[in-house]
């Protein structure tokens, strides 16, 4: 088992708890441990447990359930769309008692499994257009259902995952390029389908001052928080932007702003370094594993983690519009944390096959 990967994952999650603690300490009234920290710790422990369990299993056996898991997930999404109650203007959560789960988060993993199974079965015919299109059709229902919730960020993440997996498994570059151009040209149509606040976010990305009280406010505050951290940061728990409640959503999507403010450039780069380690080990596993199933899964998981990290951090420094993607294993949120550890668990399981 890849010890480095495992170690990096654990380190990231521990740091995550520390940052959630800092981000929510003002909520707890200056110092106490808020309920959110306890919940996040619970999620992390559950996640690590799942990671251990999965890493010991044979990923090929898990893959056999790939289609079933994906179908179940789609069913959950449909049910949610029809019957789910709205929270914050979106239908994303299924509540089971004290626990809320986001089916859209789990789709990130089930899509990888389903697609990996599909591509593995048809490894001879990946170059054909027919297989290519069928692969896309496999992913499409999930993307659409999530987009309708509305959840732009999660829907978007499925695209690079699918593309990366197809690319790694040998799809024709021509096909990939055509699909991407198609997507690019259909952007105006997609624009019309967006809700007002989503359009707002994209417009504000170009000019944050368009909405200084709403979406633009968050970006401006985030940049101030990160920028004021300087090279060494203000120190743990000392984020004034954080403490003074200027930063909205700081324990979820904008937790990187807290990290940037308190740990400075050095701290932020160390965190990015940890992610880079995870990604590096993941790529190595993808490279070394002999069978195509493992390759596909590994590439999918690496893309999942890398894309979320890149988009989330870019969002906080204003390089990308606000799309609500969490920082894996760090942002507060049970479903995403579990999904991330599921993914790393799969990587570890695959790594065992490599070392044989």
């Amino acid at each position, binding site marked *: 088992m890849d010890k480095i990967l495992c170690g990096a994952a654990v380190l990231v999650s521990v740091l995550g708890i520390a940052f959630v603690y800092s981000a929510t300490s003002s909520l707890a009234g200056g110092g106490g441990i808020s309920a959110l920290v306890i919940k996040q710790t619970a999620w992390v422990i559950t996640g690590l447990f799942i990671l251990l369990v999965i890493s010991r299993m044979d990923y090929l056996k898990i893959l056999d359930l790939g289609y079933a898991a994906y179908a179940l997930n789609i069913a959950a999404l449909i049910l949610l769309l029809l019957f789910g109650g709205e929270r914050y203007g979106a239908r994303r959560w299924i509540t089971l008692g004290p626990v809320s789960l986001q089916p859209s988060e789990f789709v990130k993993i089930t899509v990888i499994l389903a697609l990996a199974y599909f591509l593995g079965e048809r490894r001879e015919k990946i170059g054909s257009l027919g297989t290519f299109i069928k692969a896309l059709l496999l992913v499409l229902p999930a993307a659409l259902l999530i987009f309708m919730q509305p959840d732009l960020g999660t829907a978007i993440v499925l695209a690079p995952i699918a593309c990366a997996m197809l690319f790694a498994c040998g799809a024709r570059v021509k096909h990939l390029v055509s699909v991407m151009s198609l997507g690019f040209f259909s952007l105006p149509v997609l624009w019309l389908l967006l809700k007002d606040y989503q359009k707002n976010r994209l417009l504000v990305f170009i000019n944050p001052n368009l909405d200084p009280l709403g979406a633009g406010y968050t970006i401006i505050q985030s940049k101030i928080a990160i920028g004021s951290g300087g090279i060494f940061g203000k120190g743990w728990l000392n984020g004034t932007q954080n403490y003074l409640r200027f930063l909205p959503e700081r324990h979820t999507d904008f937790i990187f702003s807290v990290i940037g403010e308190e740990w400075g450039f050095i701290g932020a780069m160390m965190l990015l370094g940890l992610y880079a380690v995870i990604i590096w080990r993941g790529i190595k596993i993808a490279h070394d594993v002999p069978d195509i199933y493992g390759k596909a899964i590994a*590439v999918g998981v690496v893309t999942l983690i890398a894309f979320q990290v890149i988009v989330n951090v870019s969002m906080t420094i204003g390089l990308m519009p606000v799309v609500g993607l969490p920082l894996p294993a760090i942002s507060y949120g049970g479903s995403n944390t579990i999904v991330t550890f599921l993914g790393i668990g799969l990587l570890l399981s695959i790594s065992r096959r490599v070392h044989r």
Partner: protein
Amino acid sequence: MRIRIFSLVLGVCMLALSAGLAYVQVFRHEKYRVMSEENRLKVVPLMAPRGSISDRNGKPLVKDILSFEISVIYSRIKNKEALTEFLSSSLTIPEEEILSLLAEAGKEPYVTSCLAQNVGMEKAIQIEELSGEYPGLFVEVSAKREYLKGRSAASVLGYIGYINRYEFDKLRTYGYKINDRMGRDGVEKYYDDYLRGRHGGKQVEVDHRGREVNMLGFREPLPGKDLRLTIDIDLQMYCDKLLEGKKGVIIVMDPNTGEVIAMASAPGYDPNVFIERSGEKSVRELLNSRDYPLLNRAVSGVYPMGSVFKAVTAIAALETGTIVPGTEFSCSGQLTLGKAVFNCWRKNGHGTVSLLEAIKGSCNVYFFRTGLLLGGEKIAVFSKKLGLGEKTGIDLPGEKEGTVPSAAWKSRKLNQKWYKGDTVNYSIGQGYLLCSPLQVVRMMSVFANGGQLVSPFLVKDIGGVRVNAQRSVDLGFSRENLNAVKEGLRKVVNDVHGTGMKAKIEGIAVAGKTGTAQTSRKSSHGWFSGFAPAEDPKLAIVVFDEYGGRGGYYAAETAGKVFQRAAELGLL
């Protein structure tokens, strides 16, 4: 190999990310440090002024006026003693009080806390001029809604209140902010979307004295749109005054267009009590009062209309050919139906009368007989034709549709058969029939305007744009029949022995019908509904006197007075 390309792509992205981070955290560090450390950023919401409301002639009824508040941000206060002294002398409040207010503010030191409200403009300006010397002190301007006519037209205007948690969760995507006011009744509620406008704001960089040095972002507030009502405030105030101390409704409407010239509902209230903090006690009283002063009885109250309904029975009978104006019945004071006895209000009866005499004298027996010939179903059909049992669609919230009974209705709702006795009661407007005063005046307008069912409305234009709400449906009644009923209505007021004599005024022929509706209590409701001038009607009216007794008295008299005043105002 492909994996290598993949890792290369990722590597480039991560590098770009690091470069971006470096830019923000290393190269631009100083700029952000200053912004963050010295609390130099202030978000100033710019609230959109709410639209004002005026009457048909442009006379202002409701406006936002400027209200000044003295506030502090506790954490920015540098010299508490000096500030206390200053505030105490400018606001003439004892120092101990200032100190306790400051202590309260200290509990939330980074947020603006209000110390004094409704400060006069001059004082506010004085304090503002010196506020530079007292960091942490601010003069805030906010908009306060003022209902210029007090209790008058309250049922039409409505009132506003602050949005509550539940509503905010639901409506925030429509642009409502946490401190927003929203209309809670009347046109304030119905047209809230237009009146609200859209809030703006600015993000500014301030210096250590709190003065703006740089504007980082600005969004202009969009003022709400102004409403111009169809109401004539002078006639409205007269109607409100007539209803003082009583319970009831007066509605004056243009029967040809549906414009509502006046709508008064009593007991009423003063919408200003919802604005002032000092009005909280009055608000509680209003909410708990058993007289339901917040209820707009004109559209939300449904009642039996009594003999006013005879006009409907009359036109129904004429149109179906059941009777002709010359048809006569004999009234001895009562009608026997099997074992039941139904009385006319005149103990000894009216003698032999034709339709016009029956209307003039409000003979129950005539209409009992007519109704029995017609049958309950046909009465129901004509009731619905004349707009009863359905909402008029007026631009007010909370309108009720009332009840138009029929055999089907009775079996569905009460699980009972329809009896002849029900038809008998129906034909004189008693029984299960329930209508709002607005429905009554709309019905009466059909006789005034030659057979059109108009749609009543209250708003003439929004933001200067004419709102063309004039809609009418031709009911297809014959001219002769309508004129026959109209003549009867004219006799009610202008002939001797007409039940509506008290509505008669000098120089103008008023037409109409009285009504005394029996209720489950001892007192009856008094009604009068009519129009003037009879030959070429310009205004229609309904007066509803809750539990006020015989309609021929107070209700008719009041109608006469209102027409008199309308004539004086040049509306007739």
